[in-house]
């Protein structure tokens, strides 16, 4: 049966999304076909166009429709600062917070030894090229504070050890508004080991 084949293909395609199993895929497929055919058409068009037009920014490696993304072409950013993040979502979060005014580099993932995701699967060569092409003075390693994120940061800082740039990492510790009583012990331990000077310099 031809129709059955098309539905099966749709289900299989939907299952490629993270966290979507056979049941969810079936529900999504039936929903689109039964209740929202217009939406299904829009989704198909949007996907086709995105796949055809979206590439990686040649400077920061984030997704971009142009060779250079809006951040990299803005001209208002601090060229001496480079912030290395794991994913486009991390970049978006930092941008929304307005916490950083330099340039970015998106690795597109982290080292994952058990899954065999190594440096060649990340934008590591891209990072080294950016370091040699632009007048960067400080690299901020803003990888996640997970074990894998830390492994990635360790590896990158070793790799850049011979270059002249200053390398820093995000501070770890107590969140704003955090009450110590409810803090998990790892965060508390990190906060203690990363404590900062608090003496006021008189004179």
């Amino acid at each position, binding site marked *: 049966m031809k129709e059955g084949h098309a539905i099966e293909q749709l289900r299989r395609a939907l299952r490629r999304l993270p966290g979507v199993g056979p049941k969810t895929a079936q529900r999504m497929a039936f929903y689109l076909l039964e209740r929202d055919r217009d939406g299904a058409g829009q989704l198909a068009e949007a996907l086709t166009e995105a796949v055809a037009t979206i590439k990686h920014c040649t400077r920061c490696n984030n997704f971009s429709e142009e060779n250079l993304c809006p951040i990299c072409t803005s001209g208002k950013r601090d060229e001496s600062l480079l912030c290395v993040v794991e994913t486009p979502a991390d970049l978006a979060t930092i941008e929304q917070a307005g916490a950083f005014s330099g340039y970015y580099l998106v690795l597109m993932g982290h080292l994952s030894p*058990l*899954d065999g995701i190594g440096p060649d699967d990340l934008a590591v060569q891209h990072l080294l090229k950016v370091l040699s092409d632009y007048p960067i003075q400080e690299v901020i390693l803003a990888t996640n504070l997970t*074990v894998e994120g830390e*492994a990635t940061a360790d590896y990158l800082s070793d790799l850049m050890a011979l270059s002249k740039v200053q390398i820093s990492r995000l501070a770890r510790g107590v969140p704003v508004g955090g009450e110590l009583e409810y803090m*998990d012990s790892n965060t508390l*331990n990190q906060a203690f080991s990363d404590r900062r000077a608090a003496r006021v310099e008189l004179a």
Partner: protein
Amino acid sequence: MTTFPRRFQNQSAFLLQHRPYSETSLLVDLFTEKSGRITAIAKGARRLKSSYRGVLLPFQPLSVLFTGKGDVKTLTGAEPVRSRIILSRDHLMCGFYLNELILKMLYRYDPYETLYPVYERALDELSRKSDAEFTLRRFEKYLLEQVGYGLHLQRDMSTGLPIDEHVVYRYLPEVGPIVNNSSRSDGVLIHGDALIALDQEEVFTERVRRELKQLNRTVLATHLQGKPLNSRRMFAQLYPGKDSAETQAKHVEF
């Protein structure tokens, strides 16, 4: 007085790996003290306010509680019992390697109670930047023993004589060490002193280190049945010059 069945009791555990499961949960593989390797869903673990946040991490000594009859359990509690074992750089890669060995060598839901303290001790040693190779080889020895493929380190399997430190043996993965009288070319050539060093857990010399790496690698490969060890390959990629731990992937025949 009622005693709860074991599955309702807290037990010590380590997280081996985790992956996202639905929008808010995690699918976790745990190495537990009493139940061995288990897979469980940690519901809501990815939510911002989840009590699992900052807790369900590799190398964090945990006390866990889980329920369920099927293959995939439901985690109902996880708390740290002491601070996380901090590993860095090559020692961290060794930690991942131990996790991968457990995931690929142990059967799910078989208890490995004597291996559990060996694992914890290995992590503690790695966090003190121990001689990583010594730690790994000893862990591999106990792991092989626990899955029923224990190394033969005390006797020549062809003559029954005790291992002589000055003799060169040919170690056949399915048999053990036999005196090397050159009629065969398979297995691993190894000096008696290397077999004794691993058996007695004595300090390794450079040659012993090389020979034992080759021995364990060959025996593990026999039992991994073609499953590759990703963390070993990555170690070689990340630390190409470093001849500690499980480097030199070019010699690996997977």
